[in-house]
């Protein structure tokens, strides 16, 4: 290797390390803050590393009024969203992947467009509709709008996954004695399972993270982000830090597990053809 090449490689990795630090350092800092003894957070001057490891801050957050309920609410809403989204979106994704039919391209573009629609804003007019339908301040109501948000992504991911399962495999199963449905269940489904799991995780994360609609459509049955948001005005520092840290944990785990499928979720340009 020449000196020049060495120099360039060194430069490359310097840039890479700087960018990686830019992404990672804030995450480390919020984790540190969440485990810093409570009083130390208010002290000046304060050191970056806490003097002691303490779970008091996290315990304070979890014991605060409403936190645990909102935590279960969040999980429930996310699970409901996940169920509805996959039940609706996976068949559509399958159709887009498997069949050439009139209107397919229009449907695909429509999905790409709804992916960009500012869906959470719809929560405001939905207040009135939900009050009429008795969905206001219910978990299922929140799950409904979260489903509308996650649905385009679910269609895109599942269609990507099903196009990865060759059509011939299902046809072979059909020539070997399976019905249409049987071929799907015995061949396409098992092969698509890891991808479908990833789609499920993304859906969960979308719902888990959503705050605007959840805060607007609930009063007593708050989800975790809605609870944290509406307590911000009165919440002490330690509550905010612990809350921030706590919210990112499940999201980060799921993202790490499903990372390979990120590109199917966000890929696909509108004016491709």
């Amino acid at each position, binding site marked *: 290797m020449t000196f020049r090449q060495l120099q360039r490689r060194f430069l490359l990795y310097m840039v890479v390390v700087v960018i990686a630090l830019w992404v990672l350092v804030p995450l480390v800092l919020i984790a540190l803050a969440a485990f810093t003894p409570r009083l130390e957070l208010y002290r000046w001057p304060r050191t970056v590393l806490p003097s002691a490891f303490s779970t008091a801050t996290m315990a304070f957050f979890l014991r605060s009024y409403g936190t645990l309920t909102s935590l279960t609410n969040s999980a429930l809403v996310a699970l409901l969203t996940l169920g509805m989204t996959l039940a609706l979106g996976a068949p559509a994704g399958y159709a887009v992947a498997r069949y050439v039919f009139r209107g397919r391209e229009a449907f695909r573009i429509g999905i790409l467009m709804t992916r960009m629609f500012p869906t959470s804003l719809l929560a405001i007019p939905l207040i009135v509709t939900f009050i009429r339908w008795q969905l206001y301040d219910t978990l299922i109501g929140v799950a409904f709008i979260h489903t509308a948000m996650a649905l385009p992504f679910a269609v895109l991911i599942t269609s990507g996954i099903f196009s990865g399962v060759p059509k011939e495999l299902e046809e*072979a199963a059909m020539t070997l004695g*399976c019905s249409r449905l*049987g071929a799907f269940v015995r061949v396409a489904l098992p092969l698509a399972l890891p991808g479908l799991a990833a789609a499920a995780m993304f859906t969960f994360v979308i719902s888990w993270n959503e705050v605007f609609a959840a805060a607007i459509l609930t009063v007593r049955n708050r989800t975790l982000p809605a609870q944290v948001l509406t307590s911000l005005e009165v919440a002490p520092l330690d509550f905010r830090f612990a809350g921030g840290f706590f919210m990112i944990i499940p999201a980060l785990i799921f993202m790490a597990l499903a990372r390979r499928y990120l590109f199917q979720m966000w890929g696909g340009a509108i004016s491709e053809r």
Partner: protein
Amino acid sequence: MAEIRLEQVRKTFGRVVAVRDVDLTIEDGEFLVLLGPSGCGKTTTLRCIAGLERANSGRIFIGRRDVTGLPPARRGIAMVFQSYAVFPHMTVAQNIGFGLRMRHVPRRQIQKDVEEAAALLRIDELLQRYPAQLSGGQRQRVAVARAIVMKPQVLLMDEPLSNLDALLRLQMRAELKRLHREIGTTTVYVTHDQVEALSLGDRIAVMMDGTIVQLDHPSVVYDKPASTFVAGFIGTPPMNFLEATVAARDESVELVVGDFTLLVPAMWTDQLKERAGQTVIVGIRAENITVHHGPVPGSLAATVLVSEPLGSQQLLTVQVGQDVLKVATAPEPLLAAGQMVGLTLVGQKLRLFDKETGKALPVPIPPPSEGGT
């Protein structure tokens, strides 16, 4: 085992007519090859028989049973796909036994049948492996075993060898032939490789634009092609074509090609007399042209343009007047470009086609003593 009958089967995709009112009867135990260029509708025909496509009109019978409306599962067929379609999430044994499991055959019986089929295809060592651990040729064998273990009435294969390398293809071709001799199932085999078709088929159905243009034994299809299309598609190199004008003499007829005159065997006389003054297309295969290194009376003068030594023979591209011909000759002596040679055509093997329609003029039965140029 059963015969297959297609009656006026038509399949369209939007504006494209993939299969155009095809009538076809495949006899019990026969090995029929569907041959044709890319996009001519072979796969679609096969998939209609399988039930993977619903024909727009027409009827399909398998063993006297009308299966037109039945799903693939209830047609008594088995199919080998071009991409093999071996299930990646099942072992070889599970793959081969899949269809039997769907039929609720007792487990003991499945195991026995699977082992038998695997032995027949010489993959009994691989039963516990997953497809990802197999070579292309082995996967192909699994696909065939999975089909024959069903003891289907009809075996359908869509270019099963096209994804294999040349040597393996040769070997599998022989194996498929052996397999068919052993199990005798009625087989429909799709290929665009004419060598495969000639070597495997009991009969060949040559397709073009969704219709069957010739259906006959391989030797007939090769020797008496029904049209210029078939003649140009089958054989390497394809048949040579020359445009000729029919000139009637008192007793005989002659064909005038540019500056040359071809003598035609007397058997053609009657037919050609009717076409006096018209243009016909003369077809002759490369191996039916004899090359003379010296001047021979009555031969065509030709210039060698290219000479390709192919081991067992030598393939020449020669110019005769305005026309370019392919000629197969002995490998020795190697001819050089620019060399002058004389050509004589084996008159018995001349084929004549109508210029307008491309259809062959019916080949007359030659009288026993006729021969020569």
